[in-house]
């Protein structure tokens, strides 16, 4: 299928405002009379709050209001939770603090400097309690309890068998066993979360600017917390300086701004600073201990996989086990594994909570599986690429249903692998490896073949429950398209701008449908009062969903314009087509009308148009998930919930210094298949950005909680993300196996780089240190971990 605009490197529409300092981030929003908030946070991991004395703070000139957690509850409600278990949470702690950095009091003052002066004057009397830091110890019966509402810190545990696990293991010839450790990381967008709330006590209406998502998906959740009628809340999106999943539903930040706005009667802006964000954001990534087994037939076929997982969820369970629902989209990877046991225990500790971070739980899933495959290759004496190839799902087997019930729509994994091996210059690198080994140096070549599930359905959040509190099944996206009386095209998006390219994508789609220049399409962003249901970016869904929504709206408008044009030209609508922005007789281009001519007629000339056509040209199209099926009652089949599955093969080249533990990336090869590519440079940008976040996960990103529960990584000097010096030359190529379920056959690409790079780099470091007997099973591979592993292997 060849397109005129879809698939082209259309210039990015989002750029001009971002390049010129006119982006409109939440920190740029100024409302007259607004106050600025600062948050006092607990220095302790676990403590009872005996008393709070804010009198000196309140007396400071410029301070308008100080709220404790209890005082805030006069204005706002507790946090919404998507979990079934009783794990209550408030934006500001009330009786107890449960993680270091939990909010204890908030200040609103005339500027941020004064707010922080006041914050320093608040005195809190804590009764320090024993911190729960080790999740394994936390599972024990005598462990201190993070929540008194629960019988145990194991807030959730479920083990599910899909297929005949016992039988497959019984008939296996080899079982490869490995444990794996994936540490807690966080999105660390360069822009932190923020909200500006303005409340009108006379009407009970509230306006909130923020960089949150979900304002057109779950606005009523915000309304409930803010104590505002759902039809009197207006959530206005700002340009977002990066999210990577962490700004889906920034409840704490919005609640704090809202509480202070109601308490003061003035607009209040709360912007997290970096310390706030690292210590207390809603969305850290998984923190997992894996024990895994992969069973093989005598011929080296993968038969069955068991995963026993302990996941340290931190102090709250706000998004429940969503990062496991997500992982279950692809736990068996690209392989024909027939059965799976997924045994997960979610444990609460005194740490910041988990939420969603790019990869959303499937990243450690890819990690453990590919480590098992590498280990199997060694144990079975089969080359890693060959072992993978032997077990890949074949192109003629799609759509392919995996043991959990999810479906993979299409793919050609061998083609991706083969291309990666071709471009990776392996002859050269293997020779280098030999040469350097002779010099006592260690070069490694990694390999990983991984799935990148795209386009989630909401069921992944709840299907691990038998009786979920909110078994939602809608995950739509909406777009409003208008053609004005002069033929000008305006699109209003229901989603925010996260650093992806929604404006460019919808412009390309609309351009394709009308044959007009994408540059001529104007794009705006709806707020929660003007937008229709839109789950927004996340789960690599947006290109898929915007393609559907924009194409749907474009077709509706185009069909109406076709009918009106046909009527005007005295033809049948079947004989009229829209080409290059003109409505003309098929095959007889002489008779035609411009977009503007048709539009003017549509807007103002009702009597000249076909009976039954309303005046105007506007359509809001809500596109629902194109292929989702529900889980069955006993959860032996979770249904298809993430069926558009992209795939990639990554081959990193590293050198490792076993004496210092330093890892240097020399080169990086990636072949990616995300179906039809909407815009090649934009897809590559997502892949490269994801790969570099993956470098962070592989080598340096980790939350460090000390034995006393305090946070050892409070700023960007401790929680390290890659600089450009850690990034090698990255070569990206593409294979395109279109999706049968989506418009244009597109699949998502946003999370791919980060879903694959960590395990690929682990593979490379492992390969480098193979002569020393080291096998990597823990991320990040810090210098100390590598040196320790080298010493232990001696």
């Amino acid at each position, binding site marked *: 299928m060849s397109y005129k605009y879809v698939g082209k490197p259309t210039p990015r529409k989002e750029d001009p405002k971002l390049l010129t300092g006119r982006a409109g981030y939440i920190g740029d929003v100024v409302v007259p009379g607004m106050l600025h908030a600062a948050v006092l946070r607990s220095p302790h991991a676990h403590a009872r709050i005996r008393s709070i004395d804010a009198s000196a703070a309140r007396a400071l000139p410029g301070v308008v209001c100080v709220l404790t957690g209890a005082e805030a509850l006069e204005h706002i409600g507790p946090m919404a939770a998507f979990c079934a278990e009783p794990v209550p949470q408030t934006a500001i702690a009330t009786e107890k603090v449960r993680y270091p950095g939990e909010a204890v009091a908030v200040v609103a003052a005339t500027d941020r400097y004064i707010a*922080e*002066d006041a914050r*320093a004057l608040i005195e809190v009397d804590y009764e320090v309690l024993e911190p729960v830091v080790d999740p394994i110890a936390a599972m024990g019966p005598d462990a201190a309890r993070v929540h008194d509402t629960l019988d145990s810190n194991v807030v959730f545990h479920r083990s599910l068998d899909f297929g005949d696990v016992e039988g497959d293991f019984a008939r296996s010839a080899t079982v490869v066993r490995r444990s794996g450790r994936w540490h807690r990381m966080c999105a660390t967008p360069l822009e932190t979360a923020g909200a500006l709330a303005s409340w009108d006590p006379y009407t009970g209406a509230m306006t909130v600017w923020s960089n949150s998502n979900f304002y057109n998906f779950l606005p009523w959740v915000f309304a409930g917390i803010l104590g505002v009628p759902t039809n009197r809340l207006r959530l206005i999106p700002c340009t977002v300086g990066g999210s990577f999943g962490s700004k889906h539903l920034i409840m704490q930040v919005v609640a704090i701004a809202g509480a202070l706005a109601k308490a003061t009667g003035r607009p209040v802006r709360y912007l997290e600073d970096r*310390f706030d964000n690292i210590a207390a954001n809603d969305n850290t990534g998984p923190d997992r201990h894996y024990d895994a087994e992969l069973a093989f037939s005598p011929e080296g076929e993968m038969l069955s996989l068991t995963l026993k997982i302990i996941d340290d969820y931190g102090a709250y369970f706000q998004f429940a086990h969503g990062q496991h629902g997500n992982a279950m989209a692809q736990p068996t990877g690209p392989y024909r594994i027939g059965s799976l046991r997924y045994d997960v225990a979610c444990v609460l500790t005194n740490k910041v909570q988990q939420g969603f971070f790019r990869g959303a739980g499937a990243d450690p899933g890819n990690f453990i599986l590919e480590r098992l495959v590498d280990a199997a290759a060694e144990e079975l004496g089969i080359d890693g690429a060959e072992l993978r190839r032997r077990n890949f799902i074949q192109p003629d087997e799609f759509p392919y249903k995996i043991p959990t019930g999810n479906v993979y729509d299409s793919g050609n994994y061998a083609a991706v692998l083969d291309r990666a091996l071709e471009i990776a210059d392996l002859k050269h690198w293997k020779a280098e490896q030999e040469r350097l080994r002779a010099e006592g140096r260690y070069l490694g070549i990694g390999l990983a073949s991984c799935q990148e599930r795209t386009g989630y359905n909401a069921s992944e959040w709840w299907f691990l429950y038998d009786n979920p509190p909110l078994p939602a099944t809608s995950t739509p996206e909406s777009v409003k398209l208008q053609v004005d009386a002069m033929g000008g095209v305006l699109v209003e998006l229901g989603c925010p701008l996260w650093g992806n390219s929604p404006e460019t994508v919808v412009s390309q789609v609309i351009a394709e449908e009308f044959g007009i220049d994408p540059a001529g399409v104007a794009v705006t962003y709806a707020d929660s009062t003007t937008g229709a249901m839109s789950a927004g970016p996340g789960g690599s869904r947006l290109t898929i969903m915007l393609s559907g929504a924009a194409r749907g709206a474009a077709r509706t408008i185009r069909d109406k314009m076709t009918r009106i044009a046909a009527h005007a030209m005295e033809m049948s609508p079947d004989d009229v087509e829209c080409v290059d922005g003109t409505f003309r007789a098929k095959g007889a281009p002489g008779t035609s009308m411009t977009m503007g001519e048709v539009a003017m007629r549509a807007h103002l000339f009702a009597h000249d148009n076909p009976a039954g056509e309303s005046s105007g040209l506007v359509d809001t199209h809500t596109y629902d998930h194109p292929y989702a099926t529900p889980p069955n009652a006993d959860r032996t089949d979770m249904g298809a919930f993430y069926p558009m599955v992209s795939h990639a093969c990554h081959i990193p080249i590293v050198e490792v210094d076993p004496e*210092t533990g*330093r890892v240097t990336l020399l080169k990086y090869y990636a072949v990616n298949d995300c179906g039809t590519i909407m815009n090649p440079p934009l897809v590559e940008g997502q892949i490269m950005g994801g790969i570099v976040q993956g470098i962070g996960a592989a080598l340096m990103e980790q939350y460090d909680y000390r034995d006393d529960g305090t946070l050892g990584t409070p700023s960007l000097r401790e929680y390290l993300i890659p600089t450009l010096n850690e990034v090698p030359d990255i070569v990206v190529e593409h294979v395109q196996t279109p999706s049968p379920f989506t418009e244009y056959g597109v699949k998502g690409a946003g999370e791919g780089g980060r879903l694959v790079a960590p395990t690929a780099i682990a593979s490379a470091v492992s390969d480098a240190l193979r002569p020393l007997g080291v096998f990597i099973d823990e991320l990040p591979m810090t210098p100390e971990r590598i040196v320790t592993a080298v010493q232990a292997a001696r």
Partner: protein
Amino acid sequence: MKPAPFAYLAPRSVDEALAHLAEHGSEARPLAGGQSLVRLMNTRLATPSVLIDINRIGELAAISRENGAVRIGAVARQRACETSPDVRDGVPVFAEAVRQVAHPSVRRRGTAVGSVAFADPSAELPAALLAADGEVVARSSRGERTIAADDFFTGPFTSALAPDELAVALRIPVTAAERTGSAFVEESRRHGELPMCGVAAVVTLDGDGAVAQARIALCGVHRRPIRARDAEAALQSEHPDDELLQAAGALAASAADPVGDCHGSAAFRRHLAAVLTRRALATAISRAEERNA
């Protein structure tokens, strides 16, 4: 995060600055590059009530070489030290250390004297100063004195400067040209970060190729930068071979008493001390041998 309130003074001469320091003592801090101090002030870990901005005192920006020593003024930027022929040729270990401090953009504002006076036990320049046998020139309204590097660093972020003293310059004796080589080697978690361990080594060989003198200093492995004196003594008069350098590394490691943190535990830093001391010495010695023509 925003700093606590303070009064701001911008003296135009050293005497004016010293008068302010005499008046305010430990309530005041001098501001040069600000790359360390303002960072601390933003988190309110430092809350001086008076900030004395010395950036307008032109004479303090000078870098010069005279009387067998390189003199680096208090406002001389790290970037200027990097590119200065006086520093590069006169005190190569210091130049090599400066190149590894943070990032170029930070080095354009940060000062060498400021980094030394800040006395971060993980920082490169204090260790380089120790290895180069340098000294700090301190002035107050009471007069001027020089403080040897060996005496300057008294603890984490603390120095021998009195509250009313301003470090106006570093004086570093020019490293001998013949048969002397130096090296600064570090390991950090990521480019531009403070090192988990850094080693500065300056080695002079005698006519036979044996070690006439070695000075070894380490950062990141103690509460202040340290000299590895036992390692230095073990090298004295010996012909350096792999075994000797290993032994020197082990001795340097035993002089270390690191504080562990999220970047590296105490044990790991001690391990790095051994490895990097060996490597720094190997490089310094091979450079010394190159100059033995």
